């Protein structure tokens, strides 16, 4: 496999609009090292016994250090964390309102957020294609890698296509009822699947023309 389709980058990532800053020192670091450090950090965080929880501060320090060097804005990380953690926040809130032994839950919440921050930083300093290449070297089957590479390439294309189709549908629809809403949602999803399948045929033709397999 040539791997040329690995090098796709999402426009917003390349522009550094939100999280990723392509000129940062962390962005330039090799993907394999970053992935290994991230997995090691998560494993250490998870395995830390509750009695040793003060070491979590060290993990947090490492992450803070990494955040400074990746030039990812702390607001971006905080926003992502809030978006991802409603389940965790409920747990923390429940523990805070509960009198008595709330300590354990604070540790679980801290560990969980540290792991989330680790992945958020990894994802925003490493192009996904580079991660895929590392995974391929580690022996992940080629079919799975191809599937993920194509998914990464077309994820925002299809997501945008769906937004456009829904907007078009809304602008042409004058009836509003609950049952009809469901039908419209499903029809849009079905059309999206058909368009994805047609696109897959074109991609296959293009891949063959470029000497795939």
């Amino acid at each position: 496999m040539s791997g040329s389709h690995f090098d796709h980058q999402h426009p917003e990532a390349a522009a550094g609009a939100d999280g990723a800053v392509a000129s940062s020192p962390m962005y330039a670091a090799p993907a394999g090292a970053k992935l290994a450090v991230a997995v090691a950090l998560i494993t250490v965080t998870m395995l830390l016994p509750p009695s040793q929880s003060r070491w979590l501060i060290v993990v947090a320090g490492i992450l803070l250090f990494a955040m400074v060097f990746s030039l990812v804005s702390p607001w971006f990380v905080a926003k992502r964390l809030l978006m991802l953690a409603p389940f965790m926040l409920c747990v923390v809130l429940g523990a805070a309102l509960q009198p008595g032994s709330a300590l354990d839950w604070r540790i679980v919440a801290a560990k969980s957020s540290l792991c989330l921050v680790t992945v958020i930083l990894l994802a925003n300093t490493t192009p996904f294609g580079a991660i895929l290449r590392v995974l391929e070297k580690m022996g992940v089957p080629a079919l799975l890698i191809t599937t993920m590479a194509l998914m990464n390439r077309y994820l925002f294309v299809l997501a945008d296509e769906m937004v456009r189709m829904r907007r078009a549908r809304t602008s042409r629809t004058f009836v509003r009822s609950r049952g009809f809403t469901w039908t419209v949602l499903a029809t849009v999803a079905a059309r999206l699947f058909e368009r994805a399948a047609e696109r897959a045929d074109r991609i296959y033709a293009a891949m063959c023309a470029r000497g795939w397999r």
Partner: protein
Amino acid sequence: MPRVVDSDTMHIPDGFIDTKTALTAGALAAVGTGFALRQVRRELPPRRVPLLGLAAAFLFAAQMINFPIAGGTSGHLIGGALVAVLLGPAAGVVVLASVLIVQCLLFADGGVLALGANIFNMGIVATFTGYGVARLVGLVMPGLRGRVAGMAFAGWCSAVVASVGCAAQLAWSGTVAWEVALPAMVGVHMLIGIGEGLISALVLLAVLRTRPDLVLADGPEGKGESLRGIVAYGLLAALGLALFVAPFACPWPDGLESVASKLGFEHRETAHLLAAPAPNYLVPGITSRGLATAVAGAIGAVVAFGLALILSRFLVRGAARGEAADPI
């Protein structure tokens, strides 16, 4: 940019399951995915290989569709059953595994060490359950109506069975007590499953009407091989679920009870969660909570199957009328 990050009750984050659960689920997920990859390589023509990647991107986009559920909450498609029926169970496992890995590494949705558990629940259990149920209903009820009813019921079953796996993993890790996790997770997913089944059936019907060639034929073609595959998956999924659920099937000593009372928080949470679907699993005359949940689950399944039948009747009669009006 469309909203791409979404959190729900089924993606387990890091820190909520312990090492033994993560390793066991990871091993099961690796075996299942490896088996699916082998089967796809053997059976799928090369022409269809890009379709797997596009189907994964499609599923990712389709998961952004939120549907309203009772009580002001909303759920979104898991998609295991739908993709398994559209493309076949092995391709479904590969697609779901790709979606979950990308969601985990690119969007931090679902934990890295919990990836195995998430792939097992939503990739293998949901996909296999969905395909198996759809196939069984199709055998009993041939024709378009059977396919639609089967898809609706399969969507519901896949969500519920996957949530049982999720609850068992949380309980096995000692995070949440089984008596609390099972009714809460299953109760919520019995509601979410209705949306899952309805939207899956509507999507399948829409695809069958316009591009039936895209849907995996459910005729005799390639039956022998895929049947063997289904049996193997069934064994793997059942073995894994049994492994996770077995410790709780027998009356459990007070170990987990004490954990639950020590943690304390979940009583509050479940009291809240129990409020909505309570009539479903407080079946009078049954004392054990686990048994009550099982009975309620069975009643729920019958109700869901009834709803699926009514839905298919309603939808397919409409289709027949439409076709009669159509010159073709």
